[in-house]
Structure formats: structure tokens, C-alpha cells
């Protein structure tokens, strides 16, 4: 009987336990709810900020080599920057004619790199050929500009050039590049050792999809005579009717805003305005509930000096 008397709990004991447990459960539930809202909110904010950062990184990176003074910047509008994107550099291994140039192999037996590419050249790309002239100094230096025609690999194409070793570089492959058209006056002779810079027409474009703005990249395919399929680069950005989520604006070296459209050579700075908004409504304790808007202005100096 004494054992039986000790089994179970009294009603007040159970009530106390249930009350304490209930209070603790309520506290925990509130804390969990607040925490889950915090996690969801910070994630939404971080994603929106991440898109801002993406735009801030991508646009300066692709524009790094574009020089308005070299006519690399073609068109700038509030949602479009069209320019010559540097795809690589090479060296002319043998003096060329006005219709063809021979590029040294990308690397030679000594390990020296004579060409560097982010994208291999193709017909339609532009070549800027540096002619150092006959005089010392830069007084007679100039750049020739040409549109590329066909490109073929030529075994031992640079034989006889001082850039390749006649023994160790036997069997090397050189790129023979035909000139489709000269932009401006044609070069009469392309000097041996001339540095060649190659660019491809590229668009950084803000486009709208499902009511949101995105940043995309597309390059010009001269063979098919059309822009390549737009490659999404970052987004979404906050599109307000009449005001895109990303806007571009050009100014000159005096800070004067240049008219939208075809780029004048005096462009010195590209201003970029980016606006993002959290994908979901944010409810973080201590912050006003609602969609969180973020904006950023970044200035990108264009290569002119």
C-alpha cells in the first residue's frame, strides 16, 4: 500500500508543470517564429544585395578594356552599353600585306607566351594593329583597324621570323588572318612584331522579363548577321514603370552628361544606377515590415589616358 500511495502526481503538481511547460512552449514558439522570419528576411535582403553586387562587378569588368578614345564605345543608352570587348592580343610574326597578317603561335618552345585570348578570334572581330612607325618616339605611331575575314592555322607559318626558334619551334602553328575590310585608311604594310589587339562587339543590356529587369550579355555574330542569344548575367532588379532597374549614363571629363545614343569619343565616365528589391516581404523584428529596397550608384572610369 505505501508504494501505491506514492504512484502518480497530485492535480496541483500537474497544473504547475503544465503551466510552466505552456509558458516555455509559448516563449519558444515566439522565438522560433521570430528567428524564422529573421532568417527569411536576411536571406531576401542578402539576395537583393547580391544582385546589386553582381551588377557592380560585371559591368566594370567587361568594360575594363573599352576605350572611347579608340572608338571602342559604340552606343550608350539608359539600358544599353554596346562596345568592343577585348578578346585577346597577338603579335605579327612576319610582315604582312594589306590583305593578310600572320600571327605568331600562342606560345613557343621557350615557354614565352606570344598571344593571349579570352575568346579565340573569329571572322567579323576587329583587329587594332599597332604600327610603331620608323621614327623613335610616338610621333609617327598609329593604330590600323581592320575587320577580320577568314582565319586558318598554318603549320610553320612563322618560319623565318625572329620570334620563333628555327629548330625548337619546328611544327608550330601560326594563325593566318585575312583582312575583310579596313576601318579607316588601309595599312600598306603590317610591320613584323606589330602588336594586335582584337575586339568583339558586345552588348550589356537591361531587359525585362515577367515585370522584372535583368542584366544580360550578347555578342554580335557577323557571319549570321545577328546578336547571339542573350546570356542572363544578373538580376532581378526593381523595375518601376518608366524607370528601369539598372540605368547607364555617360559623362565627359568635365562632368557634363552626354546625350543618350551613339557614343561620342569624349566619354570619360559611365555612371550606373542599380535598384533592387527583396523578392519577399521582410518581417524582421526591429525593422518596418515590407519589401526592402536597395540602391547603388557606381562610377566606372573609361580607359582614355
Amino acid at each position: 500500500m505505501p508504494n501505491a500511495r506514492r504512484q502518480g502526481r497530485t492535480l496541483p503538481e500537474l497544473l504547475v508543470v503544465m503551466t510552466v511547460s505552456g509558458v516555455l512552449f509559448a516563449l519558444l514558439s515566439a522565438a522560433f517564429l521570430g528567428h524564422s522570419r529573421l532568417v527569411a528576411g536576411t536571406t531576401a535582403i542578402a539576395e537583393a544585395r547580391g544582385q546589386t553586387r553582381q551588377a557592380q562587378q560585371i559591368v566594370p569588368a567587361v568594360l575594363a578594356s573599352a576605350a572611347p578614345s579608340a572608338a571602342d564605345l559604340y552606343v550608350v543608352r539608359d539600358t544599353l552599353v554596346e562596345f568592343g570587348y577585348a578578346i585577346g592580343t597577338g603579335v605579327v610574326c612576319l610582315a604582312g600585306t594589306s590583305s593578310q597578317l600572320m600571327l605568331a603561335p600562342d606560345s613557343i618552345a621557350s615557354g614565352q607566351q606570344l598571344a593571349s585570348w579570352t575568346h579565340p578570334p573569329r571572322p567579323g572581330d576587329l583587329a587594332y594593329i599597332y604600327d610603331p612607325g620608323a621614327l623613335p618616339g610616338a610621333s609617327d605611331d598609329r593604330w590600323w583597324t581592320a575587320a577580320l575575314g577568314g582565319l586558318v592555322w598554318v603549320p610553320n607559318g612563322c618560319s623565318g621570323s625572329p620570334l620563333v626558334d628555327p629548330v625548337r619551334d619546328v611544327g608550330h602553328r601560326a594563325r593566318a588572318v585575312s583582312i575583310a575590310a579596313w576601318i579607316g585608311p588601309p595599312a600598306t604594310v603590317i610591320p613584323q612584331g606589330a602588336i594586335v589587339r582584337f575586339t568583339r562587339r558586345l552588348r550589356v543590356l537591361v531587359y525585362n522579363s515577367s515585370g522584372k529587369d535583368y542584366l544580360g550579355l550578347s555578342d554580335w555574330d557577323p557571319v549570321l548577321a545577328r546578336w547571339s542569344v542573350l546570356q542572363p548575367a544578373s538580376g532581378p532588379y526593381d523595375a518601376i514603370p518608366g524607370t528601369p532597374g539598372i540605368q547607364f549614363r555617360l559623362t565627359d571629363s568635365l562632368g557634363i552628361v552626354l546625350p543618350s545614343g551613339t557614343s561620342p569619343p569624349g566619354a570619360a565616365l559611365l555612371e550606373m544606377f542599380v535598384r533592387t528589391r527583396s523578392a519577399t516581404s521582410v518581417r524582421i523584428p526591429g525593422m518596418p515590415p515590407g519589401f526592402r529596397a536597395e540602391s547603388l550608384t557606381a562610377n566606372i572610369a573609361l580607359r582614355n589616358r
Partner: protein
Amino acid sequence: MWYRRRVRQLSRHVGFSLLETLVAIVLFTAVLLALLSTGQFILARLYESDLRFRASVYSQSLLDSLRATACARLTSSTGAKAPFSASWAVTDLLDVARLDVAVSGPQRSTTVARSYNASTLVSCPEP
């Protein structure tokens, strides 16, 4: 005999008393609440990270604006863009100008200041 005595001892200790369970629940809840109350810490880190990013973009933008400015118009000066203040110095090194930008602003929601510096050289041929 010894076996039955051991079983009796063990049976007396099986399970937990109500008080023990209650104390365990309270402790467990306290620990969970402490863990869940890291929200302010997370928010502070988020704010701080955003401040750092904005300060670096601001200093880089200032530097790019200076790089894009005509040499004749390059001068040392100050500026501000909430919550940051900035100063920049232009040093003439004959055919080159050295540009130094310093941006300072709060490190967190408190007023602890932090500065961000950026420098570059630009070609400015002497006339």
C-alpha cells in the same frame, strides 16, 4: 539474493522525477532561447557587411570619377554621401598624378569609425 536486492535498487532509480524533468525543460528552453536570440548579432553583421561594401563602392567610384576628370581640373577636396564622408588628395608627380581617396564611416550601427583608402596613378602629361 544479491540479484533481487540490485533489481530493487535499480527500480527505485528508473525514470526521472517531475522536478528533474521540469528543471531539464527549463534549462533546455533557456539554451534554445539563447541560441535563437542571435538575431541582433546576425542583423549587425548584415549591416556591417553592407556598410563595408558601400564604402568600398563609394571609394572606388570617387577614384574612378577622379580618373575620368580632366587633369587641369583635378584638385584635392572633400565630399560626403550618407553615412560616409570622403576626402581625396591629388599629388602632382610631373607627368603623373597620384590620387588618394579616403572614405570614413560607421563600422556598425554604433559610431565607431572605419576608414577605407584607395589610390591610383594617372597619366597627366605636363603642358
